[in-house]
Structure formats: structure tokens, C-alpha cells
């Protein structure tokens, strides 16, 4: 899924098209305002690429578990 995703520009893809983020988590991200896939890497940058903070944000925002946020 990651390979397909990275094979072309993110453009307006939905958050659910991100590796590790399926239908359910994508829906929750959408509800919290991160409906576009590009918002998620944007948040990683704003968190200074701190993996722990990012993992915690993703868990708080859509309930992603460790494996999902690692993906």
C-alpha cells in the first residue's frame, strides 16, 4: 500500500490511502479535520519529526495502534 501511495504525488488523496490508515482510521481522521492524506505528514513535520509525539498524536486523533502509526 505504501509503495502504491508513494508511486505518485499525494495530491488530494484521502487520509485512508495512507499506509497503516485503513477505512476506519481514515474516517476518524476525516472527522477530526485531517481528511486529506497530506495533512498527516504535515503534522509529522510540525511535531519536528518526533516519532513518539507523532505516534501519540495519531493514537489520540484516530486510535491508531503502534504498528499502524509506524506504517
Amino acid at each position, binding site marked *: 500500500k505504501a509503495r502504491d501511495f508513494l508511486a505518485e504525488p499525494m495530491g488530494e488523496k484521502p487520509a485512508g490511502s495512507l499506509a497503516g490508515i485503513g477505512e476506519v482510521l481514515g474516517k476518524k481522521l476525516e472527522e477530526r479535520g485531517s481528511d486529506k492524506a497530506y495533512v498527516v505528514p504535515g503534522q509529522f513535520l510540525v*511535531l519536528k519529526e518526533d516519532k513518539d509525539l507523532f505516534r501519540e498524536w495519531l493514537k489520540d486523533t484516530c486510535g491508531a495502534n503502534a504498528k499502524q502509526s509506524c506504517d
Partner: protein
Amino acid sequence: MDDYAVLSDTELAAVLRQYNIPHGPVVGSTRKLYEKKIFEYET
């Protein structure tokens, strides 16, 4: 956790610095997370 809500972004960043909690800018999409980190630190 609510008493952090009264702090401005700048004040919150100062507390994060004081507690040496790694952080980036306090903005709308990061504020809740940083309030939680401060709460965890203080408790």
C-alpha cells in the same frame, strides 16, 4: 487538564521548555497533545 487551556501558545511553549519536554511550535493541531504532555509530567 483544563487549567492549561487558559495559557497562551507562548506560555504553553514556555512550560514545555521549563519541563524540557521535546516540542515544536504550539499550534492548533499540536496544542492538545502538548497540554497532555505537561499534564503527564506534572502528575
